[in-house]
Every structure is written in C-alpha cells, then in structure tokens.
C-alpha cells in the first residue's frame, strides 16, 4: 500500500512540469519566446529525470531501502517521454521539419549531435524497458542499459554547450553527474564483483 502511494506520488510529480508547461501554453503565458520556454523546459526536465533515475541505485545502496528500485523504470521512462517532447519541439516548432537543415545542424554543431546521440540512447533504453524485453534480453539487458552512463555524459555536455557564458548551472549539474557516476566507479572498484545497476 505504502509503496503504491509512493509510486503514484512520484509518477504524478514527474508529470507536473509537463502539466504546468501545457497549462501556460494554453493560457498563452509562455513568455516572449514560447518556443524556447517549451524547448528548454522539456529538455531541462528530461535531464532532471535522468539524474533522478540515476540516483535510485545509490540511494538504495546507501539507505538499504530496496523498494525504491520500483521507481527506477518509471523515472527512466518519464525521462524518455520528456526527451521525446524536447526533440519533437526542436524538429517541428524550431526547425519546421526541414530535414536538410536539421542534418546540417547536427553535423555542424556538437551540441545538436550530442543531444541527438543521447536521445537515441534514451529511446533504446526505454524501448527495452518492458518486462518481456528484460526477460528476452537476459544478461545482455544489463549491458545495454549501462549506456545510460554514456547518455548522461552526452546530456551534460549538450546542456553546457547551450550556455553562452554562465557556467554555474553546467558546473552544478556536471558535479551531480560526477557524484552519481563516481559512486558507481567507487563501488565497482572497492567491491570488485558487485555490478552497479
């Protein structure tokens, strides 16, 4: 019962930023630059949900509270959903589905290239997240899902490259990522055999 409440609370919490953006959009209250408000809003929350997904395992290990693992898949899929919204907004509202322009943008600019690479990883992970896929993939599932570490590194760089000058935020989130990944490296090295999830 308690776990179900927790699951649903977190589920609704993750829906909240999208709901707020949608409400603001409906009221025509997205500020002077609605596109950027939507694009950055969805992108930022995809990033935050990616960090949330990655903090489940460390929290579980540090607290010893195992039920929290039930949140991991849901948070990961929410992250992918926000990423889909983010990329859709970029492709349609920003680029107007001008594929040559999108292609050139991705090839010419690291920021776009890294973002799209991270997006493809997140899509793959989300697509392989249902239980039947976990069963079907067996041991390889764990190997595939380690790609989330690559994704979060790509996302941090993608985020940092959007900043013109102010490095406080990229440094803050970069620090969080370093902690989350560093903890796994630390555990892997110190315990040797236990595999981080």
């Amino acid at each position: 019962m308690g776990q179900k409440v927790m699951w649903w609370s977190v589920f609704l919490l993750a829906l909240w930023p999208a709901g707020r953006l949608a409400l603001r959009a409906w009221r025509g209250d997205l500020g002077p630059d609605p596109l950027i408000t939507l694009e950055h809003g969805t992108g930022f929350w995809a990033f935050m949900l990616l960090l949330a997904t990655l903090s489940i395992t460390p929290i579980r290990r540090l607290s010893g509270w195992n039920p929290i693992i039930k949140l991991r898949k849901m948070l990961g899929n929410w992250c992918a959903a926000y990423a889909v919204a983010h990329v859709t907004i970029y492709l349609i509202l920003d680029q107007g589905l001008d594929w040559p322009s999108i292609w050139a943008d991705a090839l010419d600019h690291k920021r776009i290239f890294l973002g799209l690479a991270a997006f493809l990883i997140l899509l793959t992970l989300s697509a392989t997240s249902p239980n039947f896929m976990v069963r079907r993939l067996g041991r390889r599932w764990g190997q595939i899902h380690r790609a989330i570490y690559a994704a979060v590194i790509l996302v941090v760089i993608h985020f940092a490259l959007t900043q013109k000058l102010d490095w406080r935020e990229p440094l803050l989130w970069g620090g969080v990522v370093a902690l989350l990944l560093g903890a796994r490296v630390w555990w892997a090295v110190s315990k040797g055999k236990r595999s981080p999830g």
Partner: protein
Amino acid sequence: MSRFIVPRIAPSEITDEKHFWDRRTWLTKVAGAIGASTLIGQRLSATAPQRLAQADTPTPYESITHYNNFYEFSTDKEEVASLVGNFRSTPWTVSVEGEVKRPKRYDLAELLRGLPVEDRTYRHRCVEGWSMLIPWNGIPLAAIIRRLEPTSRAKYIEFTTLLDPAQMPGQRRATLQWPYVEALRIDEAMNPLALLITGIYGKPLLPQNGAPLRLVTPWKYGFKGAKSIVRIRFVERQPATTWALTAPDEYGFYANVNPAVDHPRWSQATERRIGRFGRQPTLPFNGYGAQVASLYTGMDLRVNY
C-alpha cells in the same frame, strides 16, 4: 551627394495587427497540445514559413521590454526587467574623450540638444539566433559625431557602458570583463543607419533596453549596441571590445549579420522571430546590404566576422 533613403518595411509586408494576434494565439494553443500530434506539427510548419516570409509586424512592446540580453543585470533574458528597479538614468552624463576637438563631460540633454529624434523600425538580430522588429526612436549617430568634431586621427569610436555594481547586480559577478565596451570604425559610425537610441514605440527607453542612451547598428548582431552609455571615446587604433575579448573565436569586432558564417556552436543561416514558431532566413547584413555593404568592399567577411 545623394540623399540617404532610410529603408522601410513595405506596408504590404506588414500583417494587420488583429490577424497577427489571432495567429499568435492560435499557434500558442497548438503548441499547448504538445506531446503533440505530428500531424498538427506538420500543418504548422507547412504554413508558418511562407507566412513569415510575407508578413512582418513590430514585436510587441511587452516582449521587447521583457526579453533582454543585458548581462549587467542578469544572464537570464527574462529576468533582466525584474532587476532594474534600482537603476537611475537621470541625471546622466556622457564623457566625450580622445581624438576630439573639445573633450568634455556632457549632460545628456546638452549632448542631444536640438538634434531631431527619428522613428526607425529596424530588424534586430541577436547573435544567439533570434530576432525582433523594433520601432526605435533615436538620433543618427553621425549627427552627434559631427557635433563633437573628432580630429582626423579618430579612426574608431568606442562606447562604454556604466560600471556600477550597486545599480547593476550582474556586474557583481565576473561573467564579462566590466565595464562593457563596444566600438565601430568611424565610417561605420557615420553610416546613416547607426542610431543612438532614446526610446522605443515613442516611449522613453527603459533600463532593460539600455536607458537612457544606447547604440543600435541594425546590420550587426545586437551585442554591438552598447547600452547605458557613459563614455564616448574617439581613438586611432581598433579598441578591444568586450565579447571579442571574451570569446574571440565566437564573436568578432565587426559582427556583421552574416548567414554564411556560422557561430561555432550554432547556425546563423536562419533566425527565430520572437513570438513565432519556425524559422526564417537570415539576410546578409540583416537585410541592410544596400546601405552598408560598401563599407566592407575588399574585406574577407569570413575572416573579419
């Protein structure tokens, strides 16, 4: 000498305001349905660019005054307007220095006295890839330069923004090297398009837009337009300018709007008009080539970006 003709946006290019707002509301609502169906998106993208190409209408005052790159207050464009409360633009003095007949500290009113303020609606293109159409009120820079009588050694004109962290909270952090400095070659400065701005939409300039006096050179990226100017200096050598010092590979001294030269991190071929979705092509010299291209004859604009 032929009379200079201020380029105007043809009335046929301007959307009736009511239709503009109808469309804007509609677009915003469509965006609201995001997570949205691709079908709607395709419809949007199919109609938007063609319309943008035909239609141009001044950016709403609210947007012009609440979307500001003014790092002296904040690096967040939508936060600047909320941080200008302590800013006092009167009294205001402008110190005129360097290669000029009579260096002097002018009271602003004295500097501008008798020079007619003109209404000029210019395209405004930010180096970040967004644009506006802004109805400025200002005085041609050339008229002020003539009044100040620079010497023959004045090859460049340099503008310095107020340095006062007490009024400008963004200056308490070293995001840029303060004070902000921008400059033009003297022949660029004499071009009739260059304005010193005192108002927008017929209203006095607000602090977030660079009150009480700022530069506008519409064929260049917006960062060339120094705001809240306290010093005008005429010099013989090209001055070191703030953004060119900060990231020389990304921001050059000339900073002419040029769709053929990308910013290292993003394309400059297209731009987003604030308040609309989709993109429109960026024009060489921001569409003012007929007025300014001759200033750069023989120069490689890929090198002098």
